[in-house]
């Protein structure tokens, strides 16, 4: 059986796939790759099924050795890549030869780098997914040096031969569309204006649950507590005290604070790569125009 051996991990290295769908009513969130765009691209480059499990390396520094020659691709937060001491390119498939070690440096921008292997990776499948849900503590536990990860057979197509054209990831301020609602009516006109004109900085306590944001106050017009209601990927939840949180892959399935707006699905991957200190600007859109 072909397998990778984990030699080193950076801040965190997780197996993530397409996640668990349709279980939120039982208290189980979707989880899965935080930057679903980079994840899908990595699988496409090696000809995998779109939801095949990859390694999601937070802040790079991942190092893996393969026992047999495998086709791999690395996407997401840009890192220096070395394969047996020689540099290689991101966003393009390449072979990692039997016995060779692939090593990632620190990302120059972004947070999460994806390593796909042709055939996908195997882990402990829990409720149909290997994804480690950091909040629910479900799935394949975080990878550590010495772990051996088997390569699977989740192959769908012939690999891509080209490099995928990618907009460069930078640390410049990012702009996110925000569909107002469902609870924008809990907030004052001033709060909505602050969303358009204010800048929000990602704070260091951000994680896969959500990006926590420091920014101008978002005053409410309604007192009292919101009856606990379901939460969704991309939701911008505003607690009474504390920082607004933009929910990412491991967000809670229900919450008791109002959601002022929701980042549309296509823009969530951008939010998932925003690193602490990076500035976010929102482009709020009334719910009716979406």
């Amino acid at each position, binding site marked *: 059986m072909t397998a990778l051996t984990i030699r080193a991990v950076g801040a965190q290295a997780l197996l993530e796939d397409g996640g668990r769908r349709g279980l939120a*009513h*039982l*208290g*189980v969130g979707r989880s899965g790759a935080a930057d679903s765009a980079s994840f899908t691209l990595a699988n496409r480059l090696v000809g995998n099924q779109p939801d095949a499990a990859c390694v999601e390396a937070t802040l790079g520094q991942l190092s893996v050795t393969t026992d047999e020659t495998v086709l791999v691709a690395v996407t997401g937060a840009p890192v220096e890549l070395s394969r047996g001491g020689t540099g290689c390119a991101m966003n393009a498939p390449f072979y990692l030869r039997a016995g060779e070690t692939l090593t990632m440096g620190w990302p120059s921008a972004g947070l999460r780098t994806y390593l796909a292997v042709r055939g996908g990776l195997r882990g402990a499948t*829990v409720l149909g997914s290997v994804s480690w849900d950091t909040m629910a503590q479900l799935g394949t536990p975080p990878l550590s040096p010495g772990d051996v990860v088997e390569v699977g057979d989740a192959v769908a197509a012939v690999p891509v031969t080209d490099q995928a054209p990618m907009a460069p990831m930078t640390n410049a301020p990012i702009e996110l569309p925000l569909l107002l609602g469902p609870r924008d009516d809990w907030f004052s006109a001033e709060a909505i204006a602050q969303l358009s004109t204010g800048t929000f900085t990602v704070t260091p306590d951000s994680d896969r649950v959500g990006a926590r944001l420091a920014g101008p106050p978002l005053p409410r017009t309604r007192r009292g507590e919101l*009856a606990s209601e*379901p939460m969704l990927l991309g939701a911008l939840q505003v607690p009474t005290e504390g920082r607004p949180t933009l929910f990412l892959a491991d967000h809670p399935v*229900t919450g008791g604070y109002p959601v002022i707006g929701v980042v549309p699905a296509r823009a969530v991957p951008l939010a998932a790569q925003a690193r602490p200190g990076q500035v976010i600007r929102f482009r709020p859109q009334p719910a009716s125009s979406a």
Partner: protein
Amino acid sequence: MTAPAVSTGRRPRRRRYGDTGWLLDLDDNDEVHRWTAAIRTAAIPGVLDVVPGLTALLVVLDPGSTSSEAVASALDGIRPAQAGVTSGEHHLIEVRYDGDDLYDVARATGLSVEEVIGAHTATPWRVAFTGFAPGFAYLIGGDPRLVVPRRPEARVRVPAGAVAIAGEFSAVYPRTSPGGWQLLGHTDAVLWDLRADPPARLRPGDVVEFRRAGPA
């Protein structure tokens, strides 16, 4: 599916939840379960999940296979049955009332320990929704005298099977986890089992009765 000819209920307010969901505001939790059942029965293409909250529900859709608008118009055509309350499974859970916060709850409520236990076992509870952790069911419908705040500080470790109350809710911790609720006792009932399908024994709409377990 045939809709009843007469519908007396007002239409719930439908609120956009980004481009992957719709939130329906409802009057109470019974309405949430009636609408959840009706939407599940309607099997709208592209709908991934119907997630209950206390007085709202979320319809989660897959933007790759449907559109918000298509799901919205399908939702607007749904009329839940008016008759009765949709009823889930009935669970009887035996509890040993030996929790660390039993005396604090008695003090806070002005009841005796016996009265706290009596109040907790007297009324059937209902799973309003889940959250906090996999399989964690928020139970409502308890004796109003049992409304207590959370503990000022959460415990780092609450064991699986701990039976607790906070606010208007009761719950059984399905797995060992941190927790800030007031602990009344514990049960040996297994409420979260990954080998079971579904893994959560208590599901939204289910009815739960607590019974005092005999001496060990």
